């Protein structure tokens, strides 16, 4: 008997996308196969993990997530440096959560000032993520683009309702955009087309198909990522051949299951390790589906995922 392994013939390739600025560039994408299917294709750049930094002290984190950052949570610059110096962060993701009108509602100028300080202090690519409020993000992210001109920040979430304004600012000041859509492959494709029509260069687009945590709709994100990859790699859908980013930590760490102490739910086991594994397993699933960049929080969860990437790339 001849033992011929059934292989997929890939006709497409994910776009190689350099992030950050000269001297500290990190490249993602470039895959010519489903993730980690190295017996039939290539993944020239292993997936990367960006560590979260918040623009002001977080209020609703469980202690298990706060503990590694307890000494820096009031200072985004020190926080970012700690991620890089102590935890070896490959990228930083600055979450501008306090710009949310329903939260602290800090001004666009204030947010831009914080972002500038952080961007000056880090020597890795910097993701800057707004609050998700469409109108406020337009103001905030435009201001961020302007004060950080030329730094090739990764700016998001850029959505249907604000892509023109933020896209134009990103082009003018040379940044990369994160095209965000709500778990729908067609909407993802459409937004990428719109960004292309606006003249955002193809090597400056990442896809964010939305993320749910383990137990909270992860399956939808898992499948939409698999479908995007399938369209990009075997159906040659050019407008989906961009690297995928998954902003997962903030979804994971707000769930009840990471916050319940063992004393209240003995069967759920050790609270710290449970939270770490819920984050790491959420990451593992989206990685296997096809994500290129993961935004993560707990250093031990990050180490587990890094080790898994290393093992699967070996």
């Amino acid at each position, binding site marked *: *008997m001849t*033992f011929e*392994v*059934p292989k997929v013939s890939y006709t497409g390739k994910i776009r190689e996308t350099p992030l950050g600025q000269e001297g500290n560039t990190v490249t993602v994408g470039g895959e010519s196969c489903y993730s*980690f*299917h*190295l*017996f039939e294709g290539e993944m020239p750049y292993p997936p990367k993990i960006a560590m979260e930094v918040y623009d002001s002290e977080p209020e*609703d984190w469980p202690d298990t997530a706060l503990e590694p950052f307890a000494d820096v949570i009031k200072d985004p610059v020190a926080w970012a440096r700690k991620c890089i110096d102590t935890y070896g962060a490959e990228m930083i993701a600055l979450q501008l959560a306090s710009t949310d009108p*329903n939260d602290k509602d800090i001004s666009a100028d204030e947010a831009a000032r914080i972002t500038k300080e952080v961007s000056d202090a880090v020597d890795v690519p910097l993701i800057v993520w707004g609050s998700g409020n469409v109108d406020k993000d337009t103001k905030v992210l435009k201001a961020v683009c302007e004060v950080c001109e030329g730094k090739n920040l990764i700016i998001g979430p850029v959505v249907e309702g604000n892509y023109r304004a933020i896209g134009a600012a990103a082009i003018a000041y040379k940044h990369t955009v994160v095209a965000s859509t709500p778990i729908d492959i067609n909407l993802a494709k459409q937004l990428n087309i719109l960004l292309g029509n606006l003249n955002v260069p193809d090597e400056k687009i990442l896809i964010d198909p939305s993320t*749910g945590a*383990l*137990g*909270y*709709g*992860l*399956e*939808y994100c*898992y*499948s939409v990522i*698999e*479908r995007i990859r*399938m369209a990009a790699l075997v159906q040659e859908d050019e407008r989906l051949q961009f690297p995928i980013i998954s902003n997962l930590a903030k979804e994971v760490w*707000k*769930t*009840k*299951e990471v*916050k319940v102490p*063992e004393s209240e739910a*003995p*069967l*759920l*086991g*050790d*609270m710290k*390790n*449970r939270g*770490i*594994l*819920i984050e*790491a*397993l959420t990451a*593992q*699933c989206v990685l*296997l*589906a096809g994500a290129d960049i993961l935004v993560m929080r707990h250093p*031990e969860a990050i180490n*587990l*995922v890094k*080790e*898994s990437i290393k*093992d*699967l*790339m*070996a």
Partner: protein
Amino acid sequence: MGLSGIEIFKKLPKTNCGKCGVPTCLAFAMKLATGQAELDACPDISDDVKEEIGEASAPPVRTVVIGTGDRAVKLGGETVLFRHEKRFENPPAFTLFLSDKMDEAEITSRLKKFNDTVYERVGVVLRPELVAIKAESGDASKFGALVEKVCNETDAGLVLMNEDADALSLVAKGCSNRKPLLYAANKDNFEAIGNLAKEISCPLAVKGNNLEELSEVSEKLIAMGLKDLVLDSGARTAKQALEDQIIIRRFALLKKFKPFGFPTIVFPCDMADNLMKETMIACQMVAKYGGVIVMSEIEGHSVFPLLLASMNIFTDPQRPMAVEQKIYEIGATNESSPVLITGNFSLTYFIVSGEVDSSRVPSYLLIKDTEGLSVLTAWAAGKFAADTIAIFVKKSGIEEKVKHRKLVIPGYLATISGELEEELPDWEILIGPREASYLPVYLKQWSAD
């Protein structure tokens, strides 16, 4: 999944007797073709035809059952490579590993933890399913004693791991009524172990040192007449296991390659030196095609996230998960706690109840049956309209639980508030936030007066 309804129909008796529960043979054939009926329901069909149709309509990955009664575990039955193509059928069985070299106290405590670990989520029971017992001491009586102990202490299905056919036979015959998985037939012992599995009608694991060897042994066992096999490709690294699992599934589905048309057994317990890393590898197996997943330990912090992952990945993408219609009390509620209403799509329930929980404002959450649809979709489909909401609110019993009459509806349904006030004249309808994430802020300023 070879035959069409018409092809199956041609082979049926065409008596239209209705004994199968469907009025005509044609209708029965159509149901068979889509997997909604079992061939056994037809009383007049000949064995030859049964085999012919059964073979052709069977899923390319055979469904194998380990264990009996309530604790029988179904594995395999898979028909797709990606869950979005249809759905994954049978979630993996997390399995506790025990060795006859472990000391008694250790075994007792691990078994107890295994038995105690049961969760319920959206009405589904989640638990580790199987116990694997390995002969490592070289002492047949020790192995036998351990198997007996496990049989006495749990009803769960078993995996008996001993590649010495005689020793395995001795123990397996004693508990064959439990339908254990015998592990494993390899290129050297397959005749003896294959005959044993046949004699006592138990499922059998096949082990090769690589895929090619696995296919050869599997083929020989099929030729011997064995039907219920479980595959071990011998991979003991995460990378090799991923590759092997993908290739096995592809062979079964794309090439209808019989020797690989079975569920698999994988061993994260042999691939890592700590439980955290082992859990990561097990998660990989959940997504990519593991069947029996053998773990060195069952600990809540590890197995609970794995069961969540498994539940997520094996959810039918075409059928939203729904929670029960009723009043959910979140926190220490009293007669002046807020009352909120939303639909019964499980994700809606989890997100809304999670936000209410984190607000620390004890609240009543009314979950109305919307057939698993999300709020806006349900509204558009008439499943979340003012009249049906009113009937539910009145019947739910909430009027006995609270003194006030204020009902918070989802912000996206602001348009129905007038209509709802007409249907529920005693109630004041409040329009809640559009996104659940704003609930904590909203609830903190809510007042019954």
